[in-house]
């Protein structure tokens, strides 16, 4: 019962968070210089034309009226019409979200097991050359920006060796494996950025757990090494890592503007970036809310995992 109440409570919080987010995005759009008509027609257009276009789009109405019609539409499941594309927002968001989830999924599947494995191995071999190699390589990879590593990969693998395609967008109607093939190279820069981070968190957690009293107790009571690591150390050591991974989900879904641009991939990051530049509020708000939902969802899952792994934490909290 406590668990369901906790989830409900978290969901309510999430709704309030998302609503606040929509208010902030709307306010932000108003603060940005220029207006929608000007953004579409450019600086050299006649002021009368800009006014006429703003009127057609309805962005010359009072701010409250604009926000009200948007939020009521949203509550009825209508994401609204894009100002710049003059078409419903939902298909754009849906398409971009699916793309983003694919790319994030592949990066996630690569980096989470390998990052944790790297951290665990480093901790078990702490202060040896293996540990140093993993830590230094992870750290070095993290500080290389995506646009540098991405271009290097493109130059080497797509232009010189021609083993990987230049773009992340597969041909229409491509099968699963073709899609994965197209997404592999773009996910490597993401892997590089996240690997060091996750590995270091896992390593620190492991070292702390290995030196803790309960580990010593477990060893002293005669459990095998394998049993100690699996049953006692890992469960405790990975808790902070899970939180870190959950917080990176928002980035993996919505923060990949650079990688998406470089590999010409139509994900949600570049969608909202373009929408922000064009002051396309319905598109921007819908995109940000979708990322918000993913982020909140990922954190909720992380919390549940946390409690599953750590019996000391339980929802409802009166025990």
């Amino acid at each position, binding site marked *: 019962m406590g668990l369901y109440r906790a989830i409900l409570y978290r969901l309510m919080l999430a709704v309030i968070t998302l609503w606040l987010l929509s208010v902030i995005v709307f306010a932000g759009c108003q603060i940005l210089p220029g207006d929608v008509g000007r953004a579409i027609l450019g600086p*050299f*257009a006649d002021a009368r*034309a800009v006014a006429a*276009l703003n009127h057609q789009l309805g962005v010359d109405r009072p701010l409250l009226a604009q926000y009200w019609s948007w939020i009521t539409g949203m509550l009825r499941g209508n994401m609204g019409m894009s100002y710049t594309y003059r078409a419903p927002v939902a298909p754009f968001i849906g398409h971009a979200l699916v793309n983003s989830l694919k790319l994030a999924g592949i990066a996630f599947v690569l980096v989470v097991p390998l990052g944790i494995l790297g951290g665990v191995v480093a901790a078990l071999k702490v202060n040896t050359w293996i540990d140093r190699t993993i830590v230094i390589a992870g750290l070095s990879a993290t500080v290389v920006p995506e646009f540098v590593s991405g*271009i290097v990969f493109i130059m080497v693998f797509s232009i010189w060796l*021609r083993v990987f395609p*230049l773009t992340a967008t597969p041909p229409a109607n491509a099968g699963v494996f073709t899609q994965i093939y197209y997404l592999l190279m773009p996910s490597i820069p993401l892997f590089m950025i996240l690997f060091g981070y996750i590995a270091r968190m896992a390593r620190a957690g492991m070292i702390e757990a290995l030196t803790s009293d309960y580990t010593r107790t477990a060893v002293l009571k005669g459990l095998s090494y394998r049993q100690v690591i699996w049953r006692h150390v890992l469960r405790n050591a990975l808790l902070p890592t899970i939180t870190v991974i959950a917080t990176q989900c928002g980035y993996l879904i919505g923060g990949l503007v650079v990688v998406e*641009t470089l590999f010409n991939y139509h994900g949600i990051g570049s969608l909202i970036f*373009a929408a922000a530049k064009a002051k*396309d509020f319905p598109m921007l708000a819908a995109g940000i809310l979708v990322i918000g939902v993913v982020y909140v969802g990922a954190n909720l899952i992380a919390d549940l995992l946390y409690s599953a792994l750590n019996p000391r934490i339980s929802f409802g909290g009166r025990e």
Partner: protein
Amino acid sequence: MSKRDQLISQIRRNLSEVENDLMDNALAGRVDRRGFLAHGTRLGLSLPLLGTLAGAMGMGGVRPARAAGPSGGTLRVAMTMPAGAIDPVTIADDGGLMMAMQTAEYLCTLNPDYTLKPVLATSWSPNTDGTVWTFKIRQGVKFTNGQPMNADAVIASVERLVNPKNGSNALSAFAGVLSPGHSQKIDDYTVAFHLDAANGNFPYVLSSDNYNLVILPANYTGGFEQSFIGTGPFKLEKYIPKTGASFVRNDDYWGPKALLDRTEFTFYADMQPQVLALQGGQVDMLAQMPVFEGRAIIDNPQFNIISCKSSAHEQVHMQCDAGPFKDKRVRQALALSINRAALVRGLFQGHADVGNDSPFCKAFPSTDLSVPQREQDLKKARALLEQAGVGGGFSVTLTTEQFLEIPDYAVLIQAFAKKIGIDINLHIESQDAYYGKAVPGQSDWLDVPLGITDYGNRGVPNVFLNAPLTSKGTWNAARFHNPTYDGLVADYVKALDLTGQRAVSGKIEELLLDETPIIFGYFYNYIYATSKAVSGLPAIGDRPFLQTVSISQS
């Protein structure tokens, strides 16, 4: 009388006064072949006739059309993503324009040498004072949906853009030139345009120069993206917003059929991945490549680089009515501090022409080339500052936009100015912040004492002469108010013949050199890059017409 002279005088008898003025200029050697053709087509003379005349006058005939390449195949083009819905009425970006012009056509288009090529109009001519221009419309042309292209379609297409209620991006191009309701149907294939004021360059306002003016059916009310309706050499196969588009040859096209079977466009959010895509063989052509973003391939012999002369430039304006640049000697000094040849080399690897602080670039036939070119002269610049009472130098902020090579240009100006003691602080902001609301008081562009603003290619200097420089100009960031200049520009716009235009253009160039409200440092070329398999792309900047393009299949 030689045979040549007989031919010329025979033709001249049928020409109007204005047309004969052009002939006088040509015979006296005051206009070269290029200028002769440019002005002749503007006056509505056909290119074959002009070619005959040019040949008779020893200018060399019109070059024969390039030998047609192999037909068939698909051309894959990388281009910058359209900024929004493809609606010819509102498009204001290269990407959107690139899409619309694949299927829709103009009345006339710019040729590489700034002459006009008749497309959906077959000819045009002014009345004696240039206040009424009559256009003959091509017969037998149908839209892709079967509707006829005629005077009604032309008038509706123009009225749609002239009407201030439609949010049309071309409204500023028509302001003061053509008002709503002034396009008159003479018959099904003849339209007369009654202008607000005499205008010698009006055909350019109805050409591809005014890129919103593609001819659409009379009953068009929007939704171009669904049909890509037009009369052009290609028709829509598929359009996916934010992703790409493909077109196939229109076999019912009224003119020479396209050589390619298909074209395939992929949209990119940025330039660098496009260059990489060409290098990686994923596309055959880049629809546009600014020099500074194409350094990786511009000198690479593996690719064709098509460099098109243009009148596109950046204007460095200095506020003339207050602040440090109120004294024209200070403005002259800053202009004299700049090494223009170094700009052309450094910023464009030579793919640009130096500017002479007026909108008259070498590409325009009406430019008076006898006006001496301003060169870097630091000694004179320092002396001018001394005379103006600021010999000890001063400090000022240069505000500009993050766009193309402009930030680099700003840094170079800063370095040049330092040599004469002017200390420039740079403030480089986003385009949104720089242009703001685009009205004085709400726009850095129009409010700062020193700024750099980008201007795209135009076939005639009219827009450059008016909006940024005349007293009533809406883009007058320099706050330049000079009645003599306003009068000269009015004379230039009215002038129907080359003699008249050149008489004024020299005076305008000299006046602007003296007053220097704006530094025109260079006019840069537009660049297309293609693989070696591609041929036949005409060198028309910013308007890659693909009808004559072919690709070899190997």
